[in-house]
């Protein structure tokens, strides 16, 4: 197995808040292999976007961090701003959610590409830069005849493809895509997913795809990491997790996804906890249908539940549960007040 393109080691990110630190990412370890697409899923407020930005060193001022994000032997979080800037683009790319707001409306598409290539690869001549840009755009299905048009002349889906092309033209080793299809319609979304699937085949780029839609994970990802309250509670091959989830949160999330085969609505009671004072023990225990007494008291161990699969849950470590704590957790029914 080759070395990971990017490796998170016990990554922690927190924001200051009047009531204490918001621990948005709280001890995440995750590897991204070259050419691999990893889906990061979870509800809003579970720390997905913070993780994605932390990976690129794009944290807002005042955010604290610990742990490591290792890229080519260096910890990104400790780089000087200048060194980090040099990495962004040619090594670490980002695709944002809203394609409409990320392109400069006063600049032609050609100017966007020329700027990016001039800054990061100044040794490329103008002709070569144009050739590279057109080739990348072609890969995204944008006709070369439209190279000199402005962003408003393109449809939403084309703009998102242009954004992806802008990230790809520098051939970065790692790309973080934060909900790249959420603002788009089904047909355009399907088109972008197809492009992402092609990406895996044609480039060696490692892609971290942040989404709340498990359907997208099943279609576009090799592996998936399920995040809850700042922790990755389960990770493993996308097919295995979407067909046989091991962690109750993954399972409940899958069940509550409305798809064409939905015949009965299902939802997870309650809402994700606040990250200033998360619940003790397993953070999911107040909402978990399988919770045992141990879950409310002891932090769950990380267990290997299958090939390349890990899950952070007491269900899979029953022999380690202290005596007397295997009984189901008794609790009052969740009041609607805590409902989302």
């Amino acid at each position, binding site marked *: 197995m080759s070395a990971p393109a990017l490796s998170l080691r016990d990554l922690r990110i927190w924001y200051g808040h009047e009531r204490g630190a918001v621990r948005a990412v709280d001890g995440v370890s995750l590897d991204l292999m070259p050419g691999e697409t990893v889906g990061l899923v979870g509800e809003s407020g579970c720390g997905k976007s913070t993780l994605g930005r932390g990976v690129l060193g794009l944290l807002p001022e005042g955010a604290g961090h610990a742990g490591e994000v290792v890229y080519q032997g260096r910890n990104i979080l400790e780089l000087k701003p200048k060194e980090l800037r040099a990495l962004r683009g040619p090594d670490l790319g980002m695709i944002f959610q809203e394609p409409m707001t990320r392109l400069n409306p006063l600049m032609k598409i050609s100017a966007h590409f020329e700027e990016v290539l001039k800054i990061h690869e100044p040794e490329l001549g103008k002709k070569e830069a144009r050739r590279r840009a057109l080739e990348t755009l072609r890969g995204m299905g944008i006709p070369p*005849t*439209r190279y000199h048009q402005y962003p408003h002349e393109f449809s939403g889906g084309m703009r998102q493809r242009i954004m992806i092309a802008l990230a790809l033209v520098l051939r970065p080793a790692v790309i973080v895509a934060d909900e790249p299809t959420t603002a788009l319609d089904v*047909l355009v*979304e399907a088109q972008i997913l197809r492009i992402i699937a092609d990406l895996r085949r044609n480039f060696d780029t490692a892609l971290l795809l942040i989404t709340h839609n498990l359907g997208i994970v099943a279609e576009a990802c090799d592996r998936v990491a399920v995040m809850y309250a700042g922790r990755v509670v389960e990770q493993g091959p996308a097919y295995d997790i*979407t067909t046989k989830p091991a962690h109750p949160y993954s399972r409940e999330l899958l069940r509550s996804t409305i798809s064409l085969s939905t015949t009965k609505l299902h939802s*997870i009671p309650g*809402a994700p906890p606040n990250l200033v004072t998360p619940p003790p023990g397993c953070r999911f225990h107040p909402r978990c249908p399988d919770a045992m007494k141990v879950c409310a008291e002891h932090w769950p161990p990380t267990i290997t539940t299958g090939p390349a699969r890990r899950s952070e849950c007491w269900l899979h470590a029953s022999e380690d549960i202290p005596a007397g704590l295997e009984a189901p957790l008794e609790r009052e029914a969740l009041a609607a007040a805590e409902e989302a």
Partner: protein
Amino acid sequence: MTTATATKTLMEIRDLQVHFSLHESFKSRVTGRGGRAVKAVDGVSFDLHEGEVLGLVGESGSGKTTLGRALLGLVRPTGGSVKLRGEELAGLPERALRPKRRHLQMVFQDPHASLNPSMPLETALAHPLQIHKLTSGAAETQAKVREVLELVNLAPVDQFAGRLPGDLSGGQKQRAAIARAIITGPDLVVADEPVSMLDMSVRAKILDLMIDLKRRLGLTYVYVTHDLASAKFFCDRVAIMYLGRIVEIGTTQQIFEDPKHPYTQALIRAIPEPDPDKALPRDLPRGEVPDAASPPLGCSFHPRCSQAFGPCGWEGRDLRAILEQRWVNAGEETYTTERALVGDLEKLELTHEAFIPAGPGKDAGDLLGLLEKVRAEDPDEPLWRGVRELRAESGGVHVSFEPGIDPVLYETDAARAACLLYRPE
């Protein structure tokens, strides 16, 4: 959710039009006339039965939101008729329309934006009661507000009544917005993407609440969405919209089990499926959603349709799209040589007779040769089924297309579909 055996008609919509003029030129801006118009809703007819859930499904720009708003008179129809229990609403002045809104309510997409951030819930909910004079006295108003808060599960009421929207989660805000809509005792609630801004885990709760309220209060819903999966679950009937028209309308079962319009078929196949064992093979329509200000001739979907044939409305712009697609796939060299042969493609007339200019200093015969070559390389391309003649003229090539037919909703063996495949002989 099929409880819709009720056949009483609540609303009757006939040939409804909502056109927005663009006023691009100085003259049209001054006179308010002329210029191009976006036909957001372009001749839509359907009946809304009492107690049913009708889904309006389409992509952005299909006109589904505008249609939903036009039912309530929130946008002015520029033509056609909207009847509520036989009474005409289109064209009524705002003053006459306002009392009717008691019966017609709306839930908006973004719960963060549809509630006043500095207004406690009880005040926000009391407003509709006061405006429509539905209660007499503060005590009755308060009692009604509490009853409705209870109904949407914002309980214990004491805890929620005084809260500001900022203290609520997304799902709770949407519950409050629903409470405000039902407090006047409406017949119809138009819900515009009520769950699309919410997390997956919360969506089911809000849809459950809406189903529950419908049962208890005998509501009729129009559910506007781009999410077919939730529409399949939630609706009794579904209308699929594309560029301002209903292209297919039928019961949910007809639409999902036997979709007739190629557009509906493509939409259904495009939905991401979380169970990888149930995923369908994709067959995505090519191209982009067309410009709504100058929609394609004939059937609006024909440029993207794999089943299109002769009379679907082929025109010069489609030929341009074919050439562009060819240049996307072909390498740099082919593009450079072929592009030089073709002149400016941006100014094609919107007719079935197109003139493709040759590139500067290039011979019309060479251009004709190129087009013939394109045809020979991909004879199965649907566009060529609509081309009658390619003829070299001075300075370019004249292309004659078969005149298009604008499809209307035709009967099929399932849902009604606006597709020429189903046109009776």
